[in-house]
């Protein structure tokens, strides 16, 4: 697909230049050097699952049409896609497991740095899992709830607990297709089995198992991660904060937390606020200590503690190039191995913290739940002591910052929508039914130098807002739009259509709601379930006037997310295509056939405006099917079909 490539904002480009003058490449330079990317890989036509090969299939007219074992385009691309989904699902679910493990340790009194900040949620979860909360202490409940969740990971019979949260219609579909996950880990193992040489060779069957591994992520691992994180660190609350590299401070020690799991980042925020640490910073000549985040761990502390965000995925190297970062602390996922090369040109100390994710060139300080605060203080101290090494002449902190409001969740969203006296989803459903709102779109995912380096999110969301679509976001996508100023209530007057403007003005919410990190996409599923429960806009997730998109997806995790969203009945647009275009059958299955069985399907469109219109058309189609009123302020042309209904 021919696409517009962009290196991001002027500030980004300036910092890229600084990286280059150090004799080091940034992600954009490496992307250039890798262009054109391997065509067989792009099309999903290379297979290295066994040593008969590696094999690749000719996508055009000519030989070879089969791998050595006889696998054709369909099998090979389906197998590859399933493995990607399994890896993505594994990442999210393992993240969830870490959090559950901490919950268990809190219950056992082994993790003194953590508390149960949301006891009510713990009690609600216990009840949902069939544990009677009455008369039990929060420690006992923590142990029991953690045990139940850990069972979900290793379950050999039955089904994962949160599946029951889905509308009955979706559950029935999944049972009929036999894609109900038993255990979270087991579905990943199953994909590895199926895709091994000579096991599953029916592309449809393989793709169904990919759907299953997706469900085990969205309705399993990710959902568990979100819920238990809320229990330990408190449920998000809407709050104002700042975003972009301008949040770095000239006169303070800057610590950047980067990665995904909030276990360490949250404690580092606490450690950096300790009086003895601040005193030490002053002693070292700094005014204080400032913590800012990158990627999803940033989102975790943003939505709960209002901590500023330095940037999203692509800005990780640029943050170091400001010359003002004393330490960057990383956990796992989305951490570029290239970071250490950039850090070597500056005074920045790179610190890795997890045994699962080590990087040559980084100092490794292993994180342990038992001594979390102690370790966090050690890390903060390293940063503080590094302040004197900052070369003031090389500091280039850009001025760019932007306000954002973040911290919406499936639970608190209706407080904002309905107000104190009418805290339900009714106002949202009513606004959709009356044609004030067209529907809801989830725009999520990574930013990618192959495309517009975050620009696609902005263009897509603006187009959706213009057409009265309320947008919910997570992850780096939310941050990309936040930097553009789309995540403040005032944005409604600038970008939203009249109907959406009225809703935002009445409730005082931004037109774009930030729901958290990328595991928090499960919040979107729950919000959709609540919309179904509230009634009036369909009996299943597949009937709702909603759509999803990941315009600049990069990680395998995005593939897992895409699968559970599609499996849950939602139309989903990806910017660059999944690596399956080499097989007509697989492409057709994903973009057409699958809709007949689960209600959702994939589409691939790199042009963000066109992609937004695919979503709008889909939402219109659903509105027609639900016989909803025509859009209140539709001028003309856009919804001829809707008008016919009236």
């Amino acid at each position, binding site marked *: 697909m021919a696409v517009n490539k962009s290196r991001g904002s002027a500030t980004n480009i300036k910092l890229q230049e600084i990286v280059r003058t150090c004799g080091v490449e940034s992600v954009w330079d490496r992307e250039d050097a890798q262009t054109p990317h391997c065509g067989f890989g792009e099309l999903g036509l290379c297979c290295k699952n066994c040593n008969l090969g590696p094999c690749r299939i000719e*996508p055009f007219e000519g030989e070879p049409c089969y791998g050595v074992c006889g696998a054709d385009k369909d099998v090979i691309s389906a197998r590859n896609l399933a493995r990607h989904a399994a890896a993505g699902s594994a990442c999210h679910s393992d993240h969830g497991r870490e959090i559950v493990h901490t919950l268990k340790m809190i219950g056992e009194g082994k993790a003194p740095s953590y508390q149960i900040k949301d006891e009510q949620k713990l009690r609600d979860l216990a009840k949902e899992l069939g544990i009677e909360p009455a008369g039990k202490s929060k420690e006992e409940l923590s142990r029991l709830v953690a045990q139940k969740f850990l069972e979900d990971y290793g379950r050999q019979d039955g089904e994962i607990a949160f599946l029951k949260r889905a509308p009955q219609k979706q559950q029935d579909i999944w049972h009929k297709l036999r894609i109900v996950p038993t255990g979270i880990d087991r579905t990943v193992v199953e994909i590895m089995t199926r895709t091994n040489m000579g096991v599953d060779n029916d592309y449809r069957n393989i793709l169904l198992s990919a759907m299953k591994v997706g469900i085990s992520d969205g309705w399993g691992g990710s959902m568990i991660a979100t819920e238990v994180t809320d229990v330990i660190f408190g449920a998000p609350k809407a709050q104002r904060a700042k975003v972009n590299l301008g949040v770095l401070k000239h006169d303070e020690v800057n610590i950047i937390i980067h990665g995904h799991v909030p276990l360490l980042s949250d404690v580092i925020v606490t450690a950096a606020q300790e009086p003895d640490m601040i005193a030490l910073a002053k002693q070292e000549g700094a005014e204080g200590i400032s913590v800012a985040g990158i990627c999803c761990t940033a989102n975790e502390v943003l939505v709960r503690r209002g901590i500023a965000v330095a940037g999203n995925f692509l800005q990780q190297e640029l943050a170091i190039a400001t010359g003002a970062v004393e330490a960057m602390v990383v956990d796992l996922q989305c951490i570029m191995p290239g970071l250490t090369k950039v850090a070597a040109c500056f005074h920045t100390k790179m610190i890795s913290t997890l045994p699962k994710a080590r990087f040559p060139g980084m100092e490794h300080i292993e994180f342990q739940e038992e001594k979390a605060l102690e370790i966090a203080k050690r890390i903060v101290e390293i940063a503080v002591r590094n302040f004197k090494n900052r070369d003031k002449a090389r500091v280039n902190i850009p001025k760019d910052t932007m306000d954002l409001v973040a911290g919406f969740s499936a639970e608190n969203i209706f407080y904002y929508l309905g107000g104190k006296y009418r805290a339900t989803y009714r106002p949202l459903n009513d606004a959709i039914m009356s044609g004030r709102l067209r529907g809801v779109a989830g725009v999520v995912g990574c930013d990618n130098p192959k495309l517009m380096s975050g620009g696609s999110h902005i263009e897509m969301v603006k187009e959706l807002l213009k057409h009265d679509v309320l947008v919910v976001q997570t992850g780096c996508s939310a941050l990309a739009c936040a930097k553009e100023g789309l995540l403040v209530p005032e944005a409604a007057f600038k970008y939203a259509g009249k109907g959406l403007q009225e809703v935002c003005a009445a409730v005082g919410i931004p037109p774009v709601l930030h729901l958290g990190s990328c595991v928090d996409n499960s919040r979107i599923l729950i919000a959709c379930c609540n919309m179904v429960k509230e009634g009036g806009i369909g009996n299943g997730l597949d009937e709702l006037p909603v759509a999803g998109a990941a315009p600049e997806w990069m990680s395998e995790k995005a593939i897992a997310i895409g699968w559970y969203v599609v499996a849950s009945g939602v139309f989903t647009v990806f910017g660059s295509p999944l690596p399956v*275009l080499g097989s007509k059958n697989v492409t057709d299955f994903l973009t057409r056939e699958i809709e007949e069985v689960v209600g959702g399907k994939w589409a691939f469109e790199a042009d963000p405006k066109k992609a937004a219109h695919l979503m709008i058309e889909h939402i219109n189609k659903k509105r027609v099917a639900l016989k909803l009123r025509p859009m209140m302020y539709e001028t003309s042309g856009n919804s001829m079909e809707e008008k016919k209904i009236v």
Partner: protein
Amino acid sequence: MSNALKDKKKVVAKGLKILCDVKKCVACKTCELSCAVEHSKSKDLSAAVSEFPLPKKRRKVLASLNKALSVACQHCKDAPCVAACMSGAMHKDESGATIQDKNKCVGCWMCIMVCPFGAIDRRIEEKIAVKCDLCPDRDDYACVTTCPSGALFAGTVDEFKKKIKKV
């Protein structure tokens, strides 16, 4: 475009050939793909895979003496295909390149029979022969530009010999 790619601008020289350094070729077949894409309607990989008729590559990666080798028309000085062509479709242009006039080709396949490199293929839908046309639509050569290992080279045989000796 990265610096590495910028260096691969089109060289038009008398006696030009596209040659493959067998020490560098890793048999990834990127040259095959980019050749087919360059000769597609859309000139875009994702779109080209669903075109009808499918585009056809004019370059093949072969195994020779346990080494991989990317081969296409060598634009021979005394080209057998030109001699064998009964319709005058296959001819030499002023630079010495072997060029085929599609409108004259009658699909007798004699050129295929006589080509010592197996570098000519058939386009059944149009009943014409197809071969390397030195990318008339672009200012470099698709296969040379996209070769990730730097095995493909455009120039004269002497220049190529000098280049591989240097390494």
